[in-house]
């Protein structure tokens, strides 16, 4: 495997809840190669969302390391961590988390501006991405005026805006019907050609089956790994087989 873009080594996280320690993660190793799509499955409470938030720098591990492009990031200061998130990581949430007071266009442009891009760059990138996710002529709309599937596609456009090396998605299709879910997965996979890695946490086996690898978690541990291969039945896909 090429050098991983994102890696966790022996990652552990303990929460204190009412004086009781809860072991959310009990030593997890994961490595994500550039352009790779990995899905994480497991029952509620298995630690998969905790893993994602630690990888995204949105929490600190109790033990273990997180490395982005080979550099350890889990001990960076809050400020440097925030900077890292703006530059290298895109995050997609189950409940979209669009800024409700901004328009669709402003939501997508924001990460480009935060990463230091010009207004012109932000506008160009926004036009390109909204076309990609199939949301057009809704620039001035507020998020609340869109359907759930549309909001999620805008949220993905926003997550892709600053061309992050890694895209992390937590139950991105959890609130969508199956047709919208399929569209969302297609859009999430789009950046792979440019080497963007995708790590997706999901309950939905159909979404997970679209990945290169499916990891199964149980009680804070990785318990299984499935390498999903392109199907033999579709001849044009045979070329992709390694």
């Amino acid at each position, binding site marked *: 495997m090429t050098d991983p873009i994102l890696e966790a080594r022996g990652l552990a996280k303990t929460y204190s809840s009412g004086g009781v320690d809860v072991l959310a993660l009990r030593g997890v190793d994961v490595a994500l190669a550039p352009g790779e799509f990995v899905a994480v499955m497991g029952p509620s409470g298995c630690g998969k969302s905790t893993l994602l938030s630690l990888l995204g720098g949105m929490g600190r591990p109790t033990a273990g390391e997180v490395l982005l492009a080979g550099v350890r990031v889990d001990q960076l200061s809050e400020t440097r961590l925030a900077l890292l998130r703006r530059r290298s990581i895109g995050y997609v949430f189950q409940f979209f988390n669009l800024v409700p007071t901004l328009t669709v266009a402003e939501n997508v442009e924001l990460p480009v501006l935060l990463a230091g891009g010009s207004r012109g760059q932000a506008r160009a990138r926004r036009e390109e991405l909204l076309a990609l996710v199939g949301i057009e002529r809704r620039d001035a709309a507020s998020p609340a005026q869109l359907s759930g599937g549309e909001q999620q596609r805008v949220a993905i456009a926003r997550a892709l805006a600053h061309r992050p090396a890694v895209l992390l998605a937590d139950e991105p299709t959890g609130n969508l019907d199956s047709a919208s879910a399929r569209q969302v997965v297609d859009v999430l996979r789009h950046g792979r050609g440019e080497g963007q890695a995708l790590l997706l946490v999901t309950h939905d086996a159909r979404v997970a089956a679209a990945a290169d690898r499916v990891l199964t978690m149980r009680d804070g541990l990785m318990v299984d790994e499935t390498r999903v*291969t392109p199907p033999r039945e579709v001849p044009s896909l045979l070329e992709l087989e390694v």
Partner: protein
Amino acid sequence: MTQRLGGLLPPLNAGQIYTTLQRLERDGLVSSEAVPEDGRNKRMYAITEAGRCELERWASTPVPGTRLKDEFFMKLVLVGLGGLVDPKRLIDAQRREYLQSLRDLTEVVRGEGSEILGLLADGAAFRLEADLRWLDLCERRLVQKEER
């Protein structure tokens, strides 16, 4: 049949079709007559009143809903729990198979683009999802219990 089912239909053997038609005729469910065409006699088959009744009866009879026959479960219980093979390994292998089948299905639907085929594949995918959930249950109830 080919029009309705397209790629879903297994290749049909012409001999088999004629044998079937002859049996149906023997039972009075279809009738046939010879029609001259291009200097040869072509046999044209038509459904009879009795055939229509039988077809209606067959179509209206629901197919059984309970499917208790499960080869994997036999392996898990007899061999896995019998201590010959690690049951967790059996479950993991089966999970991989189901996930790969799910992947195959999505790509088949994408490739064909036919609505009827898509509907059938969606049904198969729903069942695979249920199978995957059931595997988790098997693991919780049978394997983790043993570890405790």
